[in-house]
């Protein structure tokens, strides 16, 4: 493969809400504006900061730090628990604004999305993307609040648009195209590139590539054969030059849930309600996606640092909470029972389109499925977990809803549970 830089006029816009959760909380509570703020999933003495305001980041606090670490760096740090409906509202507003410019938008996560302007420039009167970018920033303030800010990146492909969006935080807007691409690369480190962390950096360094410009100059063959040892190298060759390599659609492969135990124990009276709840929420995800599973993996991390897992592929598919828990329990009972469990998880795999509408010859199966449908209908109407398993109640109290960072496909489902 031998490609030059993509000289096409940029048609991709990447929009990233700045420190989304913290900014939305600051918008909601004016007195938190301008102050160091941390967001955590569940407040505890050593809770993990999943989002930080720019004021906290300015003191050196980083996402992923524990509360004491962040507090030591950012005196006066205020910590709040996540409030998903608020963030979902911001997400919906952002998505609606983006859709008003092009039908071809992709929400990459709860706080970032891409507008593809290919084929829609005529409809927006061939305005420059910079002009649209400023308009989007203003609309965000008008429709959500004056504290809301976003970064915008404009480029010929998704990779460069994301890179551009990260150049001047907060509230920046940058454009990368064939005219300034080399200058931008020249000002960056390898790990400044989206998708390049320490592991990939080490691979590149081992092949004599130490800067983004050297990365750009590397041949497709070098990247494929010597650096990445796969087609991934060709993808990098393309995306670094502004050609699209990141617009492939992915299929749902696994569905699951995990939990870091609130108490490290081997007491089944404590563990099983939590496992049951994880199975129940996994079942909700399966049904939300309209799929059935055939395989189950149950795993546990022990207090001594060791791990354990068991997996099994079953002959029949399943999607009801009862079936998931029954099969998970079969596997879970084979664990070393004397070990204290620190974390716990379940994953369903080998997913197929659900056969829920097909009536079984076996009445017991039909009854279980009809019961699940009836319970789902009641819970849709009156709120999730209005009808639930007694054994899972304790789990529901302690396993808190998480915010999906990686994708937004479960957001509607999560909102029901909020």
């Amino acid at each position, binding site marked *: 493969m031998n490609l030059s830089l993509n000289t096409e006029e940029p048609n991709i816009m990447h929009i990233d809400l700045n420190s989304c959760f913290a900014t*939305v909380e600051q*918008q*909601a*509570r*004016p*007195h938190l504006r301008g102050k160091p703020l941390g967001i955590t999933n569940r*407040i505890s003495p050593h809770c993990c900061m999943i989002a930080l305001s720019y004021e906290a980041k300015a003191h050196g606090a980083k996402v992923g730090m524990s509360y004491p670490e962040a507090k030591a760096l950012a005196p*006066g740090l*205020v*910590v*709040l*628990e996540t409030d998903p*409906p*608020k963030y*979902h*509202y911001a997400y919906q507003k952002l998505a609606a604004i983006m859709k008003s410019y092009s039908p071809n938008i992709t929400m990459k996560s709860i706080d970032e999305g891409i507008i593809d302007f290919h084929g829609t420039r005529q409809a927006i009167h061939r305005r420059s993307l910079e002009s649209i970018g400023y308009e989007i920033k203003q609309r965000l303030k008008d429709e*959500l*609040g004056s504290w809301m800010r976003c970064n915008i990146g404009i480029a010929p492909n998704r990779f460069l648009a994301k890179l551009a969006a990260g150049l001047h935080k907060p509230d920046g807007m940058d454009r990368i195209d064939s005219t300034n691409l080399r200058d931008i690369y020249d000002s960056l480190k390898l790990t400044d590139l989206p998708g390049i962390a320490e592991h990939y950096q080490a691979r590149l360094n081992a092949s004599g590539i130490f800067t983004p410009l050297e990365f750009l100059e590397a041949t497709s063959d070098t990247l494929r054969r010597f650096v990445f040892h796969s087609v991934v190298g060709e993808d990098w060759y393309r995306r670094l030059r502004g050609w699209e390599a990141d617009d492939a659609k992915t299929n749902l492969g696994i569905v699951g849930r995990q939990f870091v135990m609130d108490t490290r124990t081997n007491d089944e009276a404590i563990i099983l309600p939590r496992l049951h709840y994880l199975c129940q929420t996994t079942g909700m995800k399966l049904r939300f996606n309209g799929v059935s599973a055939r395989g189950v993996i149950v795993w546990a991390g022990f207090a001594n640092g060791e791990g354990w897992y068991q997996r099994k592929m079953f002959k029949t598919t399943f999607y009801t909470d009862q079936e998931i828990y029954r099969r998970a329990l079969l596997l879970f009972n084979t664990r070393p029972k004397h070990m204290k469990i620190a974390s716990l998880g379940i994953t369903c795999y080998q997913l197929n389109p659900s056969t829920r509408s097909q009536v079984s010859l076996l009445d017991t199966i039909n009854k279980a499925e009809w019961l699940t449908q009836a319970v789902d209908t009641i*819970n*849709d*109407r*009156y*709120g999730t977990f*209005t009808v639930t398993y007694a054994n899972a109640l304790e789990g529901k109290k302690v396993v808190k809803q998480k915010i999906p960072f990686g994708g937004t496909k479960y957001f509607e489902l999560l*909102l*029901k549970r*909020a």
Partner: protein
Amino acid sequence: MDNYVAIQKRVPVVATFSMGSERVICTPVKMRYNGQEIIFTELGLRHPTSKGKRMVHVFDVTDGQTDYRLEFDAASLRWELISAWEVPS
């Protein structure tokens, strides 16, 4: 969250309803709580959320001293004061 107080009590609220570009915009102006009239100085964020099939509108407001979270049930047209949070100095 040291100064956070969960309340969850129905309260009388005076609100304005004005026509926005797409929908009616509701803005709480003041409420009566514990015999006191509390006048809101700023609306931080309003966002809808659902409780089953019920639609509830959440309002984060402040009177300059304390932040309040109010919920307005769109079906019963009732206001509920959910929590108060004294602003740390």
